[in-house]
C-alpha cells in the first residue's frame, strides 16, 4: 500500500499541479454525504468519542490539538465540546453542526445535548439524520437516557442506530459484558421498531474501534464505528414510496413553457412516465425533466428539478406530482406523534398553521391520545403536552394533505405546527396513521350540498367550480336567480354556484338544515370559502358551537 502511494507520489510530482488536483477532485466527487446525530450529556463520553473520531481521521488542526493538550495527554472531549463552553457561558444550548470528511465520505454531525429538557433539540438533530449514535456506558448498560435517545431516534425515523458501548477499557474489554448489553440493546430496538441497531464495543478515550479496529478485543470481528459510518446507506435510499414531487413553484417564463419546480422527495422520474397530479387526480405523462444543465433522462430523490407535462394541467404550489402506480393518502384527519417545542402547552382544540411539504393549511388538534414517556417507553393519558413532551395526537386540517405515513416516507410524512399568534414553530409531527379515505373525504364530496350566490364574480365561480369538482362534489353553475326549485335541486345532492351581473355580497345557503337562511360570507379567497362550505356542509344545524373562526 505504501509502495503504491510512493509510486503515485512520483507520478504526481512529475505532473502539472492542475492535472494532479483534477484527479484528486474526481475522487473527491465520488463521495456522498452522510448526516448523523449524536446526543449526550456531560460525562457520558460523547464529546470524547467525537473528538476521537475527528482526531483519528485527521480532521482537527495541530494548533487546536496543542490547545487541549495537557501533560502530553490530549483532552479529546475539549476538541469538540462547544456545548460545554456554551453551558458555562449560559448561552442557549442548541444543535451544533460539524463538518468533516474521510477518504470515503463527507459527514455532517448534528451534535445535540442529551438531557430531557433538550428533547426538542435532539429531535431537530435527528430529523435529518441517516444514522444516530447512541452512547452506552459499558459499566452501566442501558440507562434512562439511553432509552430516551434511542426512542427519539426511533420516533424521528432514523433507519440505523449505532450503539457505541463505550468505556470498554473500564470493564476489562469483557466480551460477556458487551454481549449482555448487545442483547438488551437489540431487545430495545425491537420494542422501538428501530429497523437496524448495530452495537460496537469502543473505548473513546483510547481509540479502540472508533476509527481503528481494536487489538485489545480480538473477540470482536465487526467493523469500527467509522467503518460503519463510511458504509451505511443514506436514509433516502431506503424510502420505498413511489414518486413524490411536491410542487414548490410554477415556472412560466414564456407562453410555451410551463414547468413545475420542486424537489423529488421519493422515487425516480423519467420522461414518458405516467404521473398523477394531486389533488385533481389528473393523469398525464412527464414530457421533460428540465435543469440548467439541460434535460435529464432520469432524476431521483432528492434532486431539485423542473418537470413539464404532456398535457396542459393546472398544478400549483402545495400540490403534488406522484407516480400513477403508488400515490400518497389524501387526508384531513390523521394521527401523528408530536414533539412539542413551545412554552405554551398544546391542548386539545388548539388551532395552528400546519406546514406539510410545500403546503400550509390550518389545523386543529382534536385530541391528545397519550403522552409518551420516552424513558419508560410507556403511553400515559394526558390533558396537554408541555415543552419537550412527545405525544400521540389527532389532527384535522382545513384542506386535505397529500401525505404518506412517516415510516414510509419522511418528507411526505412530516409536518410542523406554527403558532398563529407568535409565528413560532410550536411542534413537529410525524404521521403515524391516516383515517380511511372515505372518512377523510366525507366533508367535501358528493354529499356536499348547498347554494352559493356569487354575484358577478365569474373568476371566483370558475375557481370554486373546479375545486369542488376535484373534491368530488356535484357542481352546477347557473345564472337562474335563486328559487325554491334550485333549493330543491340542491337538496337532491347538488352544489349550486349562482351567478348574476350584480355586485352583491356572497351568500351561502345550507340546504340540509331545517331553515335555509342564507349566511353572508365576508370572504373572497377561494380557500376560505371552501372551508366555510366544508364547515357548514358538515354541521347539519348550521351552527358550530365550537367555532374558532378557522373553519374547521
Amino acid at each position, binding site marked *: 500500500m505504501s509502495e503504491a502511494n510512493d509510486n503515485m507520489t512520483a507520478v504526481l510530482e512529475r505532473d502539472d499541479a492542475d492535472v494532479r488536483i483534477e484527479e484528486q477532485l474526481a475522487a473527491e466527487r465520488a463521495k456522498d454525504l452522510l448526516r448523523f446525530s449524536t446526543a449526550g450529556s456531560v460525562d457520558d463520553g460523547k464529546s470524547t468519542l467525537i473528538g476521537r473520531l475527528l482526531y483519528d481521521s485527521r480532521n482537527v488542526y495541530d494548533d487546536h490539538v496543542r490547545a487541549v493538550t495537557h501533560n502530553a495527554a490530549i483532552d479529546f472531549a475539549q476538541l469538540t465540546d462547544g456545548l460545554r463552553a456554551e453551558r458555562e457561558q449560559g448561552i442557549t444550548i442548541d444543535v451544533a453542526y460539524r463538518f468533516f470528511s474521510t477518504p470515503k465520505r463527507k459527514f455532517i454531525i448534528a451534535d445535540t445535548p442529551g438531557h430531557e429538557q433538550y428533547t426538542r433539540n435532539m429531535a431537530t438533530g435527528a430529523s435529518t439524520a441517516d444514522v444516530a449514535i447512541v452512547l452506552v456506558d459499558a459499566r452501566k448498560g442501558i440507562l434512562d437516557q439511553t432509552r430516551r435517545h434511542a426512542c427519539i431516534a426511533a420516533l424521528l425515523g432514523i433507519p440505523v442506530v449505532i450503539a457505541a458501548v463505550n468505556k470498554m477499557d473500564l470493564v476489562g474489554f469483557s466480551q460477556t459484558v458487551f454481549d449482555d448489553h448487545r442483547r438488551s440493546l437489540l431487545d430495545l430496538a425491537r420494542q422501538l421498531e428501530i429497523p437496524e441497531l448495530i452495537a460496537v464495543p469502543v473505548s473513546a478515550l483510547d481509540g479502540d474501534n472508533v476509527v481503528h479496529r481494536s487489538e485489545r478485543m480480538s473477540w470482536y470481528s465487526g467493523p469500527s464505528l467509522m467503518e460503519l459510518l463510511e458504509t451505511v446507506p443514506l436514509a433516502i435510499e431506503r424510502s420505498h414510496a413511489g414518486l413524490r414531487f411536491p410542487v414548490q413553484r410554477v415556472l412560466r417564463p414564456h407562453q410555451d413553457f410551463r414547468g413545475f419546480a420542486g424537489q423529488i422527495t421519493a422515487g425516480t422520474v423519467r420522461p414518458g412516465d405516467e404521473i398523477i397530479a394531486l389533488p385533481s387526480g389528473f393523469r398525464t405523462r412527464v414530457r421533460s425533466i428540465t435543469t*440548467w444543465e439541460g434535460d435529464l433522462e432520469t432524476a431521483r430523490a432528492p434532486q431539485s428539478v423542473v418537470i413539464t407535462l404532456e398535457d396542459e394541467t393546472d398544478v400549483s404550489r402545495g400540490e403534488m406530482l406522484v407516480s400513477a402506480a403508488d400515490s400518497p393518502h389524501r387526508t384531513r384527519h390523521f394521527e401523528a406523534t408530536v414533539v412539542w417545542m413551545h412554552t405554551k402547552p398544546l391542548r386539545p382544540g388548539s388551532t395552528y398553521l400546519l406546514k406539510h411539504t410545500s403546503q400550509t393549511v390550518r389545523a386543529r388538534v382534536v385530541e391528545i391520545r397519550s403522552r409518551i414517556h420516552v424513558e419508560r417507553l410507556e403511553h400515559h393519558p394526558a390533558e396537554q403536552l408541555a415543552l419537550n413532551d412527545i405525544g400521540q395526537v389527532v389532527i384535522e386540517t382545513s384542506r386535505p394533505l397529500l401525505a404518506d405515513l412517516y415510516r414510509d416516507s419522511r418528507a411526505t410524512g412530516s409536518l410542523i405546527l406554527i403558532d398563529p399568534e407568535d409565528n413560532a*414553530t410550536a411542534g413537529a409531527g410525524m404521521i403515524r396513521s391516516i383515517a380511511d379515505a372515505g372518512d377523510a373525504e366525507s366533508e367535501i364530496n358528493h354529499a356536499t350540498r348547498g347554494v352559493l350566490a356569487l354575484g358577478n364574480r365569474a373568476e371566483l365561480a370558475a375557481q370554486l367550480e373546479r375545486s369542488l369538482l376535484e373534491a368530488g362534489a356535484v357542481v352546477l353553475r347557473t345564472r337562474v336567480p335563486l328559487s325554491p326549485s334550485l333549493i330543491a335541486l340542491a337538496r337532491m345532492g347538488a352544489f349550486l354556484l349562482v351567478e348574476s351581473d350584480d355586485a352583491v355580497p356572497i351568500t351561502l345557503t345550507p340546504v340540509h338544515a331545517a331553515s335555509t337562511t342564507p349566511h353572508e360570507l365576508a370572504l373572497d379567497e377561494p380557500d376560505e370559502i371552501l372551508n366555510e362550505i366544508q364547515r357548514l356542509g358538515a354541521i347539519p344545524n348550521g351552527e358550530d358551537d365550537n367555532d374558532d373562526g378557522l373553519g374547521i
Partner: protein
Amino acid sequence: MTAIASEPTGLAQELNSGHSGGPGQSRAAAEQRLNHIQLLEAESIHIMREVAAEFQKPVMLYSIGKDSSVMLRLAQKAFHPAPIPFPLLHVDTGYKFREMIEFRDRYTAELGVKLLVWRNEEALAQGANPVQLGTQRCCGLLKTQALLDGLRAHGFDAAFGGARRDEEKSRAKERIFSFRDSAGQWDPKNQRPELWNLFNGRIGPRESIRVFPLSNWTELDIWHYIHLEKIPIVPLYLAKERRMLVRADSLIPVEQPFVKGLPGEEQWVKCRLRSLGCSPCTGAIRSDADTVPKIIAELVQMRNSERANRIIDHDQDGSMELKKREGYF
C-alpha cells in the same frame, strides 16, 4: 510534501483515496447515488425556491466574493428557464477593490440580473474610512448600518446570505432561516427549531429573515463547485504580480490614497487574495496559485500543514503559546 504524500493526512488523504477503488465499481456506485455536491446543490435550490414562493419581497445579498458567486449560480439553476425572481443587493462600502466593482457590473449585466447598490452616502460624505474611524466603527457604519438601511428602504422581507456553518464556531448552530425582529436584530435565544426541510417563513410586520442556502457547504465544496461549474470569479483570487505594501508578514493592497507606506515598503509581489473585502482592510497572501485547481491545491496543502499529526511536539507547546500571545498583543 513527500511526507504528506507517502502517508497522506487530512484532505490530501481524502482526495487521494479515490484511486484505490476500482474504476468500474465506483462508476456503478456513482450512477446509483448522488454525490455530496449534487446533494448540497439540491438542498440549496430547494431553500431558494421556498423563499421565492413564501416571501413578498426577497433579495439576494451579493458581496462579489466566491460564496456569492456560488449562490448566484444556484439561483440561476433554481429558477431556470425562468429568470431569477429577485434582485441582488450589493452593500458597497466605497472601499471595495476596483476589480470587484468592475467584475460586479460586468457579470451582473452579462447575466441580466437586477443589481441594486446601497451605500451609506452620509457617512462617506463625512469622510468615514478605516484609518480615521478604526475598522470596527468603519464596518459598523459602512457595512452593517448600510445593510440594515438598504433592506429597510427597499422593504425586503427575506435576504439570502452566503454564510456557511463551517466558517467559525459561532456559526455552527445558525439556522438556515434566521429570524430577525422588527429592528433587524438577531436573538440567538429566540430562533425557531428547524426540522427536516420544513422551513417556517411566517413573519410579522417589519420582521424579516436571513436565509443561508450555503449553510452546509464547506470551503472546499465552494471551490470545488466553482471549478466544476466554471463559475467566473474576481481575478483578485488568482495569483499575479501586484503592487503591495510589504510590512512584516502582511501584504497590504495599495488602492486608497490614505494607505501609504514607508519608503521601500511598496513592492511588486506575486500574491492573491483569499477573501475579498475592502482594499485597506484585506491582506493578500504570497502565492503562485493562478488557476482554480491551484487554489484548491493550495487550500488543501495549507489545511494539511495545520492538521493534526500522530506525533505532537509537546516541547513546542509553551513557546507556541507564547508566540501566539505575542502576536495577539
